[in-house]
């Protein structure tokens, strides 16, 4: 038996950098250093663990939709241990929203061939956390999402989803779409050997025509949502800062009382 895993990874602006919008109100991806979204490292890690724990022949493909630089994200995932990569890149994709992104990803996943898709819980720039559910809807396969624990055996995926009201055990047959949280286990660092090996691993590039997608279906033009305005949040007015010299607790209580919290 063989198991084909596609891991979706996003290249995002560094959260600790100065993230901002470009003139067309899309996320500026040129001016800000990017990297493989940390939350997608967990998805790569779980794919590797599933592979390591499996008697089957497992092949892990990492897939990204993004600009030229997004190759960096693929390289990182390959150096962690994924087998091959697919980069969907097309100028017409600029400005695509979640609905459009899920279309491109779904077509690419189908073209690549899959038994299991693993995504991160959310991208660290858009933070919508909806793409995995959208992929399941588009592919017509079960969604087994937001897992803090995941395992695959005999064509079945099982996992634990820690929700607000309860912790649930989930189960579905493959093919399926999974997303994993940052509670699923720390991602490994690429080893020197892994980094060297990654340089020789295949990276395919596809554009929209390879996926039979028309330019109008994606990009700013195809978007289902419009951002009319983006404004930097005014800096908070500097607060009062006191040094505790024995009275700090009392002073704080005085402030809270003044604000009617006590």
């Amino acid at each position, binding site marked *: 038996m063989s198991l084909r895993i596609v891991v979706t990874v996003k290249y995002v602006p560094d959260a600790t950098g100065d993230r901002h919008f470009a003139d067309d109100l899309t996320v500026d991806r040129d001016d800000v250093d990017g990297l493989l979204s940390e939350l997608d490292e967990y998805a790569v890690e779980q794919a590797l663990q599933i592979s390591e724990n499996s008697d089957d022949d497992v092949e892990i493909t990492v897939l990204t939709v993004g600009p030229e630089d997004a190759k960096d994200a693929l390289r990182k995932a390959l150096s962690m241990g994924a087998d091959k990569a697919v980069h969907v890149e097309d100028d017409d994709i600029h400005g695509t929203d979640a609905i459009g992104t899920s279309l491109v990803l779904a077509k690419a996943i189908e073209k690549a061939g899959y038994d299991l898709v693993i995504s991160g819980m959310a991208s660290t720039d858009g933070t919508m956390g909806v793409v995995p559910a959208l992929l399941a809807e588009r592919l017509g396969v079960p969604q087994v999402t937001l897992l803090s624990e995941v395992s695959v055996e005999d064509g079945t995926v099982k996992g634990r989803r820690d929700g607000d009201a309860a912790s649930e055990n989930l189960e579905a047959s493959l093919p399926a779409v999974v997303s994993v949280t940052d509670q699923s286990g720390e991602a490994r660092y690429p080893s020197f050997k892994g980094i060297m090996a990654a340089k020789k691993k295949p990276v395919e590039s596809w554009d929209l025509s390879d996926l039979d997608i028309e330019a109008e279906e994606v990009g700013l033009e195809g978007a289902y949502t419009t951002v009319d305005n983006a404004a930097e949040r005014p800096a908070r007015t500097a607060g009062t800062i006191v040094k505790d010299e024995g009275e700090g607790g009392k002073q704080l*209580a005085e402030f809270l009382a003044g604000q009617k919290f006590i």
Partner: protein
Amino acid sequence: MAEVLVYVDHVDGAVRKPTLELLTLARRIGEPVAVALGNGAGDTAATLAEHGAVKVLTHEAAEYADYLVVPKVDALQAAHEAVSPAAVLVPSSAEGKEIAARLALRIGSGIITDAVDLEAGDEGPVATQSVFAASFTTKSRVSKGTPVITVKPNSAAVEPAPAAGAVEALSVSFSAQATGTKVTGRTPRESTGRPELTEAAIVVSGGRGVNGAENFAIIEALADSLGAAVGASRAAVDAGWYPHTNQVGQTGKSVSPQLYIASGISGAIQHRAGMQTSKTIVAINKDAEAPIFDLVDYGVVGDLFDVVPALTEEIKTRKG
């Protein structure tokens, strides 16, 4: 007047507060029609009517609890067909966002997640979002189809606004996908007796500076003196001192209370992402250079083991 569908988050008929907030926002756009599903759906009607629901569409079936997400999407789609609403509003929980996204795709609509405010506009509802760890505020619209918008807790006040709240049975036929993901077990979260983190008016959080699970008693005592919920940084959660359900930040809960008190938390960008929209922010940290102090309305540079118990004492004294 146009109708607005509001997806009801409830536990066995007890409506959760974010849904009542949605009803306030829905009234700015049209007449709220609530959709309540699963066990106890019918019991939600009285509360929903008190807060402005003109109609309550209900459907009870075992599928809602036994299978993940899709049965609820099927039902919401049926409600969308029955009502042809001007917008669909869903509470921004992890599940709410997934339901909303799949619905949007099915009905050919755009989706906006995590709105913190909503107004009527010439071209449909305008949603305010807080992005990049709350360093930017955007205004967006859905430009295709029926706007599907998820709204974060604490985005509006709960306002009583009595309406008919007529209960109608929704007829739902489940799709082939509905039974794809089976829920084979469920462990309900134990109640701590404290307010729900995302809904609380006051949140008291502890971080790595709390230095041990047992020391969280100090944070809990302060929280209890204020009737607050307890939060924790990821560092405290990763260390095993406090449960992940209480984590505040990018990969935990996003909170927006009236008052947020951070003790022994440095204020990393991922933590700020989950609390920066709090109205009043207070921090206690022994490092005067900690970035959390850039956000505060009031900060105390000091040892939390001195300041927090003293604060708790003073609050108790003042409250008598």
